[in-house]
């Protein structure tokens, strides 16, 4: 059985697509067969982050409408062969998807892949609901600021009430918290919510904390998911996320600001 994981947040611009790309590549690098689906119909972004925008011929909507087969639409990643991408349509809107056909596509993909990662659009409308409906697990991407936390809370409510698992009364969706754009320095200065604050408000298990990093923007523009940048803090943090998703216990890193002074280097822990 494939694990269907939705990467969602409610709020836009918090790092859903960046995280989907990193998690997709990370799992594939571990030898799993992974497919990344872009559910943001009309605002196609995942292919850009993955660096395969010039290879898009058919998209998700074509498959839904029976205008193309899955094999025609799936784009194999050039770096990791066990990873495929199902791009969104740029010309259609979110109403092009319906539960029945999306369900069929996911079922078909489930025969081939171990992991199906659904990159959700922002908001709580039909598109986001479609992305989370079939999920077994959810990675709730949140920035350490109040509006993002509030929106994530709203999405968690939706996961518990509007998903297939909720409707059928099955075991609830497994929820993970992914805190992105975390800046320990700004937390210490009181400008940002701390990990503890966010975990306290949302009360779901923490999957990872991705530090705010220049390398993320650079990676996005280059179409090289940041997890491939093994030198960067963000890349390392995503690597830890993969290990935790696969059931390992990994200590959290990058939670405290780097100390600069000679004394703190001598005595600091």
């Amino acid at each position, binding site marked *: 059985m494939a694990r269907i994981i939705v990467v969602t947040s409610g709020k836009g611009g918090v790092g859903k697509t960046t995280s989907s790309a990193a998690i997709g590549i990370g799992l594939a690098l571990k030898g799993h067969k992974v497919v990344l689906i872009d559910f943001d119909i009309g605002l196609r972004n995942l292919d850009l982050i993955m660096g395969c925008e010039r290879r898009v011929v058919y998209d998700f909507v074509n498959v839904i409408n029976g205008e193309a087969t899955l094999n025609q639409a799936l784009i194999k990643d050039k770096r990791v062969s066990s990873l495929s991408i199902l791009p969104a349509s740029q010309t259609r809107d979110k109403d092009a998807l319906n539960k029945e056909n999306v369900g069929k596509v996911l079922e078909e993909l489930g025969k081939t892949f171990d992991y199906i990662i659904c990159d959700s659009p922002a908001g709580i409308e039909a598109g986001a609901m479609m992305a989370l409906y079939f999920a077994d697990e959810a990675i709730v991407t949140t920035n350490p600021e109040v509006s993002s936390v509030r*929106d994530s809370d*709203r999405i968690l409510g939706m996961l518990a009430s509007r998903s297939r698992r909720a409707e059928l009364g099955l075991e609830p969706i497994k929820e993970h918290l992914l805190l992105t754009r975390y800046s320990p320095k700004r937390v210490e200065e009181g400008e940002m919510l701390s990990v503890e604050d966010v975990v306290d408000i949302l009360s779901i298990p923490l999957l990872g904390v991705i530090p705010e990093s220049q390398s993320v923007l650079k990676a996005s523009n280059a179409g090289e998911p940041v997890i491939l940048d093994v030198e960067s803090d963000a890349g390392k943090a995503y690597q830890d996320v993969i290990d935790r998703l696969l059931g390992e216990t990994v200590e959290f890193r990058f939670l405290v600001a780097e100390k600069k002074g000679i004394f703190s280097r001598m005595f600091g822990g």
Partner: protein
Amino acid sequence: MADASIEFKGSSFTLSVLHLRTSKLANIRADLIKKVAQAPDFFYLVPVVVNIEKLMAAIDYQALKTLIEEFNFTFVGFTGDVATEQRKLIRELGFSFVNTTKVSTAQKAAIAQESVTTEVAKIVASTECHLYTDKVHRGQIRSGQQLYAKDQNLVVIGSVSAGAEVIADGNIHVYGSLRGRAIAGAKGHHKAQIYCQNLEAELVSINGNYWLSESMEQHWGSPAFIHLTDSELTSSKLI
């Protein structure tokens, strides 16, 4: 202009009339005990006029007034269709004699008595239906979610997120943080209370009286409960 600061005007009120069928104070006392026990809150400081027209024998007016006040009624005066001499006597003793509309003295008295009886029944009934059962919710109530415990108390084993709303006709207990809105006694119940392990609510309301966060400073971020005292919301430390 001399009396501009005060003004006398006539106005009608509905008063409770106590009809006496006996002049034996011991019997009156026994019956009052029984009656008041049914709804002590209702009778507390209620103005009472005593109708003496059915009395066959003379009665000690002063002792009667004392007896009535013993039960926490507010004694207003006497009334009834009695002889002029008796009225005069009552006034001379220092009590006021309240005249009722001549046409239907008896009728009115009957109505008054009836309304008192039904009020009592109502109070007794509503006291009973405030014995609410509990609606228990396990888990967090998330932003945008709303939970209503109709004719029940609401128990939340978890937190109520900012942007969420919990409503109950009875009490609300939150075994977690209360960050959203909590509305207790929604159908009108002034004894409803709101309890939480951590008070950080956007709004709390009891029986239509509400507070926004800014009024909760005293127990903000700590275990507290909210209740009504004389129609004013009050917060108190829980532990």
